[in-house]
């Protein structure tokens, strides 16, 4: 399972006090993302290719010690982002 954002041209986003607000031109909806969801979207936006859950979790974790909690947390936010039409999965 690999993930990527919808085409960036379709999105408008802004970092406001560590939270990401994003507007999806395809749905017409605007979302305020939780800090983790925002971080995941930022990571996917800056990557130019698809990423696996593990890769995203690693990036989010950064310098913090390894812990399966990271992947679990990222796995939690991805479906929401998908429902909002911000990310897509490719098998």
């Amino acid at each position, binding site marked *: 399972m690999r993930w990527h954002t919808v085409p960036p041209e379709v999105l408008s986003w802004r970092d*406001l006090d560590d939270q990401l607000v994003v*507007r999806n031109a395809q749905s017409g909806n605007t979302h305020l993302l939780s800090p983790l969801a925002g971080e995941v979207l930022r990571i996917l936006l800056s990557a130019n290719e698809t990423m696996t859950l593990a890769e995203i979790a690693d990036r989010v974790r950064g310098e913090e010690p390894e812990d399966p909690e990271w992947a679990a947390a990222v796995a939690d936010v991805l479906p929401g982002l998908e429902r909002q039409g911000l990310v897509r999965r490719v098998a």
Partner: protein
Amino acid sequence: MKLADLPQAELEERLRGAGLRLRTGPVVSEIRSAMPPLAEGLALLYGEYPVEDRDGFADFHVRIAPPANLRRWWRPQVQFQFDGAPPFHPLPADQAFPIFEWGLNWCVSAHCHHYLVLHAAVVEKQGGAMLLPAPPGSGKSTLCAGLVSRGWRLLSDELALIDPASGDIAPLARPVSLKNASIEVIRRFAPEARLSPVVHDTLKGSVAHMQASADSVRRAAEPARPRWVVLPRYEAGAKAALAPLPRGRAFMQLADSAFNYDLHGAEGFRVLADLVEGCRCYEFTYADLDDAVRIFDALAEGA
């Protein structure tokens, strides 16, 4: 020429005949009405506003008149007409002046899409504008009226007009609408302020309008730079408290309170994001207007 320069008889004649062209900030409305509360209300609250010539441009043509139904003598009604068509249902005839105010608000919120229009009060001090978006019942109009009677310039009690190109807010400087308990609160807080007669049993309860300060009206051509976004919440007995509001939440609050955010698409997103980035954002709980004025004056000084 100001409205106060017109003799009352001439004011009434224009209203009954060719129409009175009244300027409120960037908006000119041509007004027609044969109903006495209109002429009275305009003379009472709109003396300082410019009256325009017929060879200028009027943005809206409105008429406040009885509807074309059979209720002329039994519980007479009044209706707001926009270019001859009524956007809302008729109301009891004694609500002629409130329906005029609500109607003018509707004209702007429904047709001024060259602005991003938010449902919010806007006041200004020391060159910085404070936006007060809030759902009905939050006390924003009372707060707005209180601040205006203590030296804050009024841009609007209801409609924030944001210019997408500059990000500045354009004033309307129209009378402040007060409901129910806040009428008495303001009477006590600002005994010198001029209020319209109270109209009872409207859909919003008892309603009165407070005159905008002469300074606000005089400066109605002067836009203001947004500097603060404050979400007010009236809570009886509460100690006044100003708490920082995360900008993300402020953004969503503004987008929710906008009349035409969706129409502006990606551009609307950019305008609100820019606005919020440039502002200090707060939540404000209060019970006492004096506290509110003190705290906001301090904000303005510290700016």
